[in-house]
Each structure stands twice: as structure tokens, then as C-alpha cells.
């Protein structure tokens, strides 16, 4: 049995050195990616879209369309439908003060949120005399005044301009998705061609594993977003908040960022609910309850069913790496650390096994010697 022990590498597991390398490379990539945010977000959206459209494109390929035509057709149809859906959602939206400019709308929502907090503080003081003695409302009012005086004039324009500056970079997403669809197989074959024969089968397996890990993660993310959107939209619609579908969708997208995204989504929904019904704080409280219920469903039912199964990383490593990601690269780190760790883990474990396999290395050396011999067969002096 030739090289039996050395060749069977499936059952072996990566050791502490390889795992240190995996965590080190993941951290390094997070630091690098923080400086390339303009590319990271379009890349994520492009990858999610790619995995969504891969199935329909394969159907077209089986009908005999070329890869180029199939990629073009599915991209055109998908992005046209997305544009129509976006227009429909925006026109369906019945936000207060329709027709106002972004500046005014932002200011109004900010005022609505602040009024909600003040009312809540007043109610709390009336219920709990201890809080009234502490002059909680006055304290909070002073803090808010310091923060919100002329907030719309000072900060909102900057925020809107920054968001507008992001738009061109987000427009990269459809292009990336299109080229992923058209050229992914070509790229995979291109990579495989560069691999020596001795490592070829394992490298194919590695590429497949990377693809599967990324696919499982992004498909899980997509399913989670759809489920979150449906649950939140339904809850917000029941309590009477305006634009429930749009709010649910934005909150579900924000939840892509662990911890921070959920908080921002909740604040957004409460602010909209408080502005919609300033005289009825119960709507805003209802929105908080809906958000908490949706989060609980998300964390205990949807997440284990979708993302939890996707990466197969130890829960302790997952939680620690989320904190490391946040500490190293902030929001970008929180968002990217898990998919990045999943992909680096697959590559690191496989490369570790390949590089330390003596039989594969010997076969590679032998093949090189054969090539050398063939190339210099007629060059003997």
C-alpha cells in the first residue's frame, strides 16, 4: 500500500500552531479590511446576490444559454425587479410629512424621539418619587439639549452627504455580482491550473469547501434577513407603525452587524413609532416589545436554524472572535469576523494538512525532478 498512512489526511485535525495562524490571519485581514470599507460592503452585497442568482443561472445554462448570456439575463431581471420593488416600497411608504426634504424629515424624527424620551422620563418620575427627587427629567433634558441643539443643522447634513458618498460604492455590488456569476468557474479553473498535480485533488476539495462555507453563511444570512423582515413587519403593522415593511427590512439588514446593528434598528423603529403617534406613547412601547420579541425569536429560533448551522465553529471561539473583531475593527470587524474566520479556518486547516503531508511533498518533488529531466534531456554537455 503506497503511502497509505501519509496519504490519508481526512481524519487528521489541525493543531494549535495552525489554529494560531488561522486566528492571526483573520485578525490581520480584519485590520486591513477596516481600511477598505468602500469595497467590503459592496462585496458582501455582491456575494449575497451571487449566491441568490446562481440557481436560476444554472437553469439557463442547462437550457443551452452561454455563461455570458445566462449571467447577463439573470442580472438584468433581478436588478430590474429589485428597482421596481424599491420604488413600490418607497411610494407605499406613508411617513409623516411626505414631500418634505431629508433635512426636515430627519429633524422631525429626531424631535419625535427626544419627545418620546422626555415623556417617558415624566411618566417614570410620576410613578417613582425617588426619580423625581433625583430630578431625572431635568438631567436628561440638559444632556439632550447639549446634544440635540441644532443637531439637524450641524450633523444631519453631514450624515446625509456621507450616505450619498457611499452610493457610488454600493453601485459596485451589481457589477460584482454579475462578474462573480460570469467568471467564478473560470476563476476556479484558473486557480486549480496553477496547482501542482500532487496537490490538485486536495486543492479542488479546498476550493469547494471555501465556496460551501461562504455559500452556507450568506444563504443563512439571506434567510435570516427574510424571516426577520417578515416578523418585524407583521408586528409593526399590528401596532400601527407606518411603513412596516420598509422598517422591518432596514432593521433586518442592520442586524447583519452583531449587537450594534440590533440596537440601532430598535432605536430607529422606536423613533419612527414615537413620531407617528406623539400623543400615544403606547405605540412606541409596543414597537419596543415587538422588537424584543423579534430578537428573541431571531436568537433562539431563526439564528440556530440558519447561521448557526452554517459555519461549524465552536461557540466559545465564535463569541471571543466577535469581541476581537469589534475591538480591532469596530463595526466592520463585528460584521465580517465570522464569515472571514469560517473561510480562513477552511483554508488554514487544509493548507496545514497539505504542507505537512510527507507523501504529497515527495510526489511533488518527484514530479519536479521528472519535469527537469524532460526539459534538459537533449541539453547534456
Amino acid at each position, binding site marked *: 500500500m*503506497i503511502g*497509505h498512512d501519509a496519504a490519508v489526511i481526512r481524519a487528521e485535525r489541525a493543531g494549535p500552531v495552525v489554529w494560531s495562524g488561522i486566528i492571526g490571519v483573520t485578525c490581520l485581514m480584519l485590520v486591513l479590511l477596516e481600511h477598505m470599507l468602500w469595497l467590503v460592503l459592496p462585496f458582501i452585497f455582491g456575494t449575497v446576490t451571487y449566491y441568490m442568482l446562481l440557481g436560476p443561472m444554472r437553469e439557463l445554462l442547462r437550457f443551452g444559454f452561454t455563461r455570458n448570456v445566462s449571467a447577463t439575463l439573470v442580472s438584468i431581471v433581478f436588478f430590474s425587479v429589485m428597482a421596481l420593488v424599491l420604488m413600490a416600497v418607497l411610494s407605499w411608504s406613508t411617513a409623516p410629512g411626505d414631500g418634505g426634504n431629508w433635512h426636515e424629515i430627519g429633524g422631525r424624527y429626531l424631535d419625535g424621539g427626544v419627545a418620546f424620551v422626555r415623556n417617558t422620563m415624566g411618566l417614570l418620575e410620576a410613578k417613582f418619587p425617588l426619580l423625581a427627587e433625583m430630578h431625572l427629567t431635568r438631567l436628561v433634558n440638559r444632556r439632550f439639549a447639549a446634544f440635540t441643539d441644532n443637531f439637524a443643522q450641524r450633523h444631519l447634513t453631514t450624515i446625509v452627504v456621507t450616505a450619498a458618498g457611499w452610493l457610488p460604492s454600493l453601485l459596485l455590488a451589481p457589477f460584482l455580482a454579475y462578474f462573480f456569476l460570469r467568471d467564478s*468557474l473560470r476563476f476556479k479553473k484558473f486557480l486549480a491550473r496553477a496547482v501542482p498535480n500532487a496537490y490538485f485533488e486536495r486543492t479542488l476539495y479546498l476550493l469547494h469547501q471555501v465556496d460551501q462555507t461562504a455559500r452556507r453563511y450568506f444563504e443563512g444570512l439571506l434567510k435570516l434577513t427574510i424571516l426577520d423582515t417578515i416578523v418585524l413587519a407583521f408586528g409593526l403593522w399590528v401596532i400601527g407603525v407606518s411603513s412596516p415593511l420598509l422598517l422591518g427590512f432596514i432593521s433586518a439588514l442592520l442586524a447583519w452587524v452583531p449587537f450594534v446593528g440590533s440596537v440601532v434598528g430598535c432605536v430607529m423603529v422606536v423613533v419612527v413609532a414615537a413620531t407617528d403617534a406623539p400623543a400615544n406613547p403606547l405605540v412606541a412601547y409596543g414597537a419596543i416589545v415587538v422588537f424584543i420579541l423579534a430578537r428573541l425569536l431571531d436568537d433562539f429560533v431563526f439564528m440556530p436554524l440558519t447561521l448557526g448551522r452554517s459555519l461549524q465553529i465552536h461557540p466559545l471561539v465564535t463569541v471571543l472572535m466577535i469581541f476581537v473583531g469589534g475591538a480591532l475593527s469596530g463595526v466592520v470587524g463585528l460584521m465580517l469576523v465570522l464569515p472571514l474566520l469560517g473561510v480562513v479556518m477552511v483554508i488554514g486547516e487544509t493548507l496545514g494538512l497539505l504542507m505537512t503531508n510527507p507523501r504529497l511533498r515527495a510526489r511533488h518533488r518527484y*514530479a519536479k525532478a*521528472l519535469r527537469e529531466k524532460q526539459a534538459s534531456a537533449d541539453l547534456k554537455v
Partner: protein
Amino acid sequence: MIFGFLKSPSLSPRQRRLHNTVLFRTLKPLEVKFVDGLMHERRYLPDEIIFDEGEEGQALYLVMNGRVRINRGAPDSLHLVNELEPGSFFGDLALLDNSPRSAQARALEGCELAVFFRDDFLALMETDAVIGYKISLALARHIGQRLRFQLDGHAQLEAM
């Protein structure tokens, strides 16, 4: 261009050679083109090892050019099991299960092989039942033929 699927597809010389192999003979030209898109091309020098006995099998190999030798046994007492010509294939058991390779494959002369990766094959079975059925039937016939051959007393193992 859009309605290219209406006309009968023309096959490249490589795709015609693929079509002539036992495995893909029953496929329609369009299906051959589709399967060809999934396959990789490798070149081996004379005496170069393609895979080892006991190695985890990840792919099936089709001989497009050259000849391949199949050996079994310890390194110092290898015995020849079979020699494969262009058009034949080997490594098919790896396509069906995760069992280790049961023999060593080595290029007898400079050869060109088409490689069908197992996960591409399994994905094809899931997404395209017709192509999957045709290839599976060809594989089953081939394995059946090999079994009959062995039962007839020819202790030759043609593929791993």
C-alpha cells in the same frame, strides 16, 4: 446569441473526445457541453503519480490522451492491475463514496486527463436529474461489467 439554445450545439474536439468515452456516450451534445464546463484538465509526465493507493479519493479521471497504469501492493512489490487507453476512465468509486483509493494510478506515458470532481458530480446529480441519471447508469453498467469480469475468474481490478 440569446436564442443559441435553439440550434444544435457544435462540439469542440475535446468535447467530441469526451462524448466518445463510455461514461458520456449517452449524453446529448448540449449535455456534454454542460458537463465539460465542470471538468478540469490535467497533464502528467511519464511515470508521474496521479494518485496513491490508500489516498482519499476526490475525483474521477478520464483518459483523453496517453496511457495510465494501475498498480497495487507495497512499494517494493507492485503488481500491474491494468493499463488504460484513451477513452477509458478510473477512480470512479471515489465518485460514489468516500472510501480510500484501492490502487495507485501512474502515467505510463505523457498523458492528458479530464478530471470530474466528486462534489461537482454530486451537485449535478441534485440539480440535473437527467444528466445525473445517464452518468450513473453508465457508471453502474461499468461496475457491473467489472464484477462479471471478476466472477469469470479474471482477477483484474480496472478502476478504483
